[in-house]
């Protein structure tokens, strides 16, 4: 008996040990499943030397497809029909980026808990409650309705799935092995989810919760004064004086406002400048060659694997090169032989909150138009790894989902959501953005560009355009609700039908300009138009400084070349510093300064206002102004239980320059009366003290490159998989809008002409998503230096301009 027991122990020990080394505990990967060289991570160590030619048999292709990989592993797909082009795009993109595509769409769909466990539950709830899946389902209907986009999505999906089915436990991307899950089949819904996530990143901003609180606290006069409907300084995207050659629709009139005060535990946060981008096009009149040149650099959170994937798609009727989003067919930003196009975000107000009055706690009816209207509910089943599936019920009104009845405690992104309010968001509507890119990829002329834009809904973008026939144009494009002025600046009363969106600005009447007299067009997320545009798009856009700098430069430049455009993309000159620094220096009393502060002041005197990596002035200026804004506004706008936001940078600058005796400079928390010079001095003291504490005495460690610490982290923040700290200049208010890990996610310059396009580009990463690949982050060095690679629009697989690393032939049999 005892022996039997002993024998059993000897059997059980190895089994338990094997089990525990094959299981994931917390965030530790399953040790031996991950380490063993037969199926673990070692297997992802791809050979650096690859064969010159390779073959694949994929029976879902219709005809033979040739894929040429150039010296940066960028695929140039040569297909004989549309289906095969998108099928191959799906297959090849998945081969390089499957885990990223999977992870991003899981994030979008609120399905992270399924793979990482309960720690992602609150985030998943947020995504579901914001209606991400609901919106994606509606979008999918739009995509499937049109035969062209339907073919795109289905072929792309089939390509991804054929790649997924070719995998085994050894060849799975390494992140699956770390997080210990397996890819599931791709679906067209995932393409829609990915595009929704772009909307969430670019068009989910909403200040109406904060603005409503400000209105309640300070009244309408102060609110109108501190939060004006048009900036003090602006240089709008559509040049001032552009004529609107259309007869505008009747704009609905505003009803009497009756907002409700909103309280919560959230504290006011200093306004952080959001995600921005630059694009511009210059006509042949301003270039050395006489050909038009287009430039674009979209700013996003920088990650590895990169958000973008370069690709060329060649099929009958299409030969296009540019960057795609892994998870969506087609090319988003790029060019062909005839046209080039690029995008920046339009901060359109396409997201509104409606205060809902429910009849009772069952939330089954709500007040609307002097009666009661029924709600519907949507059950969101959230699977959680290692735990029971949670079912979250989301109440929907005709506006959209009621995001929260009670807010989560620790979810930063939920801060601006008012409780008990329904969300009306453009991204919930049926749409088909893919069609825009389908037509742009095949576009030949200005007319094709205008037609392509009509299919676009969200996230609204400034589409810049240039053609080989020397047309340039820019359009603030998206589906914009027809609103009365300031509709949605504050939370709206959801029971009043007058507050509903009443229609749309016709696509043809979106702000646009073609071949303006100044011979260039540009955008940097600033106001779309001057105040004479007949429709309301938003009351506040990104600050004007980047746009101003771009326009100043382009106005003065002649004989422009691709290289001068490249250099301009890395321009780090700060118009903000130019505007405000003299006033700050003037406000200081040199007699009061200690040694460090005196030296800091000397540095500021000498500064050329450029955010160079080797300069220490930007480090001081950034912290100094940030602290100054805090000193000015925090006492008034940070009040317990009433989350608000600060007035804009533009308004603050105006106050400092035009109204230095303003009452807002007094700190209401102290009995003394503070003045602007007091606040400026305190801010400088604070700045020098904290830089000294962190980086030692003023000197080389204060350099901007060091203080900023730019780096590109891994998408799931896996240590070792991100980049090292990079030595970069640039700042958020400059053209080179590069902060710690947010900035130019793709830089492209294209010259179009009769001899064909000449293009250059780079993004901070690499084509491969495999951290073991030499192409995982190979472009970061070039990007850091502000240089670009040649982009080859090949005419055939045999085209000799590109250096070919590998030629893949995909056959049906």
């Amino acid at each position: 008996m005892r022996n039997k027991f002993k024998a059993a122990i000897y059997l059980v020990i190895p089994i338990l040990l094997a089990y525990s080394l094959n299981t994931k505990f917390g965030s530790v990967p399953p040790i031996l499943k991950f380490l063993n060289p037969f199926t673990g991570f070692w297997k992802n160590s791809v050979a650096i030397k690859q064969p010159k030619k390779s073959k694949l048999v994929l029976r879902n292709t219709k005809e033979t497809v040739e894929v040429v990989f150039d010296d940066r592993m960028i695929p140039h797909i040569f297909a004989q029909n549309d289906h095969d082009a998108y099928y191959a795009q799906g297959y090849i993109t998945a081969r390089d980026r499957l885990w990223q595509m999977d992870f991003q769409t899981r994030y979008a769909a609120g399905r992270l808990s399924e793979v990482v466990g309960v720690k992602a539950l609150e985030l998943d709830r947020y995504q579901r409650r914001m209606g991400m899946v609901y919106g994606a389902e509606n979008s999918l209907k739009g995509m499937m309705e049109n035969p062209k986009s339907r073919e795109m999505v289905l072929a792309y999906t089939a390509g991804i799935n054929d790649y997924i089915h070719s995998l085994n436990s050894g060849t799975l991307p390494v992140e699956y092995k770390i997080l210990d899950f397996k890819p599931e089949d791709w679906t067209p819904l995932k393409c829609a989810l990915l595009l929704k996530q772009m909307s969430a990143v670019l068009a989910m901003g909403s200040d109406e919760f904060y603005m409503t609180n400000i209105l309640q606290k300070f009244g309408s006069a102060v609110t109108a004064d501190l939060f004006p409907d048009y900036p003090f300084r602006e240089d709008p995207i559509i040049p001032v004086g552009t004529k609107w050659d259309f007869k505008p629709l009747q704009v609905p009139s505003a009803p009497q406002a009756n907002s409700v005060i909103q309280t919560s535990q959230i504290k006011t946060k200093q306004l952080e400048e959001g995600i921005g981008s630059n694009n511009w096009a210059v006509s042949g009149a301003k270039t050395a060659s006489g050909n038009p040149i287009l430039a674009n650099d979209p700013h996003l959170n920088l990650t590895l694997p990169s958000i973008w994937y370069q690709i060329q798609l060649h099929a009958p009727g299409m030969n296009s090169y540019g960057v795609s989003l892994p998870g969506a067919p087609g090319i988003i930003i790029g060019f062909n032989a005839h046209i080039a196009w690029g995008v920046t975000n339009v901060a359109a107000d396409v997201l509104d909150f409606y205060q809902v009055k429910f009849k009772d706690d069952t939330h089954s009816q709500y007040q609307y138009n002097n009666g009661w209207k029924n709600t519907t509910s949507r059950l969101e089943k959230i699977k959680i790894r290692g735990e029971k599936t949670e079912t979250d019920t989301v109440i929907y009104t005709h506006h959209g989902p009621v995001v929260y009845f009670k807010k989560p405690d620790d979810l930063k992104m939920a801060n601006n959501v008012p409780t008990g309010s329904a969300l009306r968001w453009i991204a919930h509507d049926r749409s088909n953005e893919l069609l825009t890119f389908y037509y742009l990829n095949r576009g030949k002329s200005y007319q094709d560009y205008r037609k392509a834009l009509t299919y676009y809904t969200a996230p609204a973008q400034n589409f810049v355009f240039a053609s080989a026939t020397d047309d340039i144009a820019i359009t603030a494009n998206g589906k914009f609700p027809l609103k009365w002025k300031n509709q949605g600046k504050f939370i709206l009363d959801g029971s009043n039908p007058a507050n509903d969106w009443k229609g749309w600005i016709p696509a043809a009447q979106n702000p646009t300009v073609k071949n303006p007299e100044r011979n260039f067009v540009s955008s940097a997320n600033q106001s779309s138009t001057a105040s004479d545009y007949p429709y309301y798009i938003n009351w506040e856009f990104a600050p004007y400084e980047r746009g101003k700098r771009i326009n100043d430069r382009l106005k003065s430049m002649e004989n422009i070349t691709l290289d001068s455009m490249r250099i301009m993309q890395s321009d780090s000159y700060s118009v903000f510093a130019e505007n405000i620094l003299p006033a700050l220096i003037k406000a200081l009393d040199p007699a009061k300064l200690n040694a460090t502060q005196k030296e800091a002041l000397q540095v500021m005197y000498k500064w050329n206002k450029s955010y160079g990596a080797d300069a220490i002035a930007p480090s001081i200026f950034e912290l100094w102004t940030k602290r100054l804004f805090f000193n000015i506004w925090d006492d008034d706008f940070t009040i317990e239980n009433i989350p608000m936001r600060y007035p804009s940078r533009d308004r603050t600058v105006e106050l400092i320059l035009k109204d230095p005796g303003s009452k807002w400079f007094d700190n209401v928390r102290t009995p003394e009366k503070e003045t602007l010079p007091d606040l400026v001095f305190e801010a400088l003291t604070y700045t020098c003290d904290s830089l000294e504490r962190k980086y030692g005495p003023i000197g080389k460690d204060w350099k901007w490159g060091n203080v900023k610490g730019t780096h590109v982290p891994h998408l799931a923040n896996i240590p070792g998989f991100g980049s090292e700290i990079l030595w970069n200049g640039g700042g958020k208010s400059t053209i080179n809008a590069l902060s710690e890990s947010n900035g130019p996610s793709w830089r492209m310059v294209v010259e179009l002409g009769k001899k064909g396009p000449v293009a250059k580009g780079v993004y901070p990463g690499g084509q491969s998503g495999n951290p073991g690949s030499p192409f995982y982050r190979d472009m970061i060095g070039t990007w850091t230096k502000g240089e670009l690679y040649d982009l080859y629009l090949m005419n055939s697989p045999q085209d000799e301009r590109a250096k070919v690393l590998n030629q893949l032939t995909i056959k049906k049999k």
Partner: protein
Amino acid sequence: MVFIVVLIASFLLQMVLPWWIIVPVSFITCCLIGKTPKKSIWEPFFAIFLLWTGVALSYSLQNQHILADRVAEMFGLQTWWLILFVTALTGGFIVAVSGICGYKFRKTILTKVHVSHSSVNN
């Protein structure tokens, strides 16, 4: 003998089966032909230590250890060969435990018949 059997059987079986097949391989081998406790620990240990080092190197050398360096960093280690050492050591450890358990298993089962013999060997 155990060394050769574990090495070859593990190599072949891991081509098609999950890594943990090395645990029963070592257990069964030592259960059947393990001569002494010492040999039942060290022979499977070195078999897997060598096998895994060899296979891991065959992948990693062609990759110039790009991935191994990154994974080492993920585990807080300095360089690629440390993660290789950890891999081989952990693999060796588990088959060593499994081997001695296999050996002991036989001895326990056989105790009834060869009481005296088994106690000497122990």
